[in-house]
């Protein structure tokens, strides 16, 4: 990890690893989709259970993205490393996109299952708040001109958010139990049959790989932008 912290070495390493990662993402997403569509309809949910294969991995990836964002922020704050700053910055829009994807697919799943596009379910509400945290982070970053300072300040926000998220999750869960009338029965047995588990696993792997592919591309783009800006100003890289 330490050796990758050098931007030049990161560029070289990421260039060789990127095609493999992208290929693996495409294969697992493709296989997951094929298996997912081939999966039999659920005895309770019918064909709508297949929304799970695009919904659940999006939710997992969105949570993982915030974890990585907070981790990169911590490294950026402690070690003052520009690459960690870039990693944190570029993870935010991706995390927001996967959060939005999770919300949209959840809503599409909710329509046939719960009879409404939106219900104030604990997880949905937590995810809506997570989306706002992402948006606040991105807005704050865009509002500060000095990039190094923006990175540090946003890192503080990311860590405050990381401390707060479990509390938000807990409070929203507590809130949904208080509002008993709207509590939701989640269909589906305690065990997921292997026919469902395999596509879910492949899709989760595919989403995760896709996130890393996009993340690396974004970091590379940022590094290139900076290099070209420096060259334009006449400073040799």
């Amino acid at each position, binding site marked *: 990890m330490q050796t990758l912290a050098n931007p030049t070495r990161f560029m070289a390493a990421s260039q060789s690893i990127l095609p493999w990662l992208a290929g693996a993402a495409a294969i697992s997403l493709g296989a997951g989709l094929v298996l997912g569509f081939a999966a039999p309809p659920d005895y309770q949910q019918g064909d709508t259970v297949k929304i799970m294969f695009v919904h659940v991995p999006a939710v997992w990836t969105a949570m993982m993205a915030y974890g990585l964002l907070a981790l990169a922020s911590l490294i950026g704050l402690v070690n003052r490393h520009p690459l960690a700053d870039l990693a944190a910055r570029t993870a935010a829009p991706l995390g927001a996109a996967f959060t939005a994807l999770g919300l949209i697919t959840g809503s599409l799943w909710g329509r046939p299952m719960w009879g409404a596009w939106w219900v104030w379910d604990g997880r949905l509400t937590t995810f809506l708040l997570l989306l706002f945290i992402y948006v606040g982070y991105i807005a704050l970053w865009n509002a500060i001109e000095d990039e190094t300072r923006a990175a540090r300040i946003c890192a503080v926000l990311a860590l405050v958010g990381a401390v707060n998220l479990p509390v938000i999750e807990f409070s929203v869960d507590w*809130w949904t139990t208080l509002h008993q009338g709207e509590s939701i029965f989640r269909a589906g047995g305690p065990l997921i049959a292997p026919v469902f588990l395999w596509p879910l696993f492949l899709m989760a792997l595919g989403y995760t790989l896709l996130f890393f592919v996009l993340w690396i591309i974004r970091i590379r783009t940022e590094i290139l932008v900076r290099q070209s800006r420096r060259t334009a100003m006449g400073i040799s890289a």
Partner: protein
Amino acid sequence: MMSFMALVSRDVRLAVRAGGGAALAVAFFAAAATLVPLGVGADLWLLAQIAGGVLWVAAVLAALLSLDRLFQADFDDGSLDIIALSPLSLETISVAKILSHWLTTGVPLTLVSPLLGVLFGLPAKAIAVLSLSLLMGTPAISAIGAIGAGLTLAIRRGGLILPLVVLPLLAPAVIFGAGSVLATLNTMPGGALALLAAYSLAAVLLAPFAVAAAVRLNLGG
């Protein structure tokens, strides 16, 4: 301690005399709450049911209004640099700022809340819980709000970003605060007040470190 008290009293006096601080927050709180019955109708049963939520949301918004003054004015005229140079640590300064913000928003909001509780048709017991929950929960609003104020203090138009950053983080306070009122109203077992107190204590304890870090970064440290 002397300089701590001096800083608090300076900020409180500035808020009261220059910004119209306490009165403005209370007026906003009352005006926003008054609009709700006009919007949803005058059914007192319905109003009592939503009173906890409406008044808590209004209180959070009223407290947010004065947050941008917390550091920005001092930053703009340079006095924040002077304050930072004082023997007090930035963490202590943050505590003083949070305390003075709470004294000029949280306390007055708590004091007028029984009146608004009556207007919303809450029974006496629920009004007591509402005021108690605001008394315990508003320090968390000031503490977490101060983090947002510290993060955005150098942004020229931070007024819009500050609520965006702070509001999602305040969800637990609103949930527990409004939940305690609703639980009392419908005689449900709650524990919401205990959770609110725990949340508020943790926020007041931890926030000064984040505020100090944010201010330090913005002062170019």
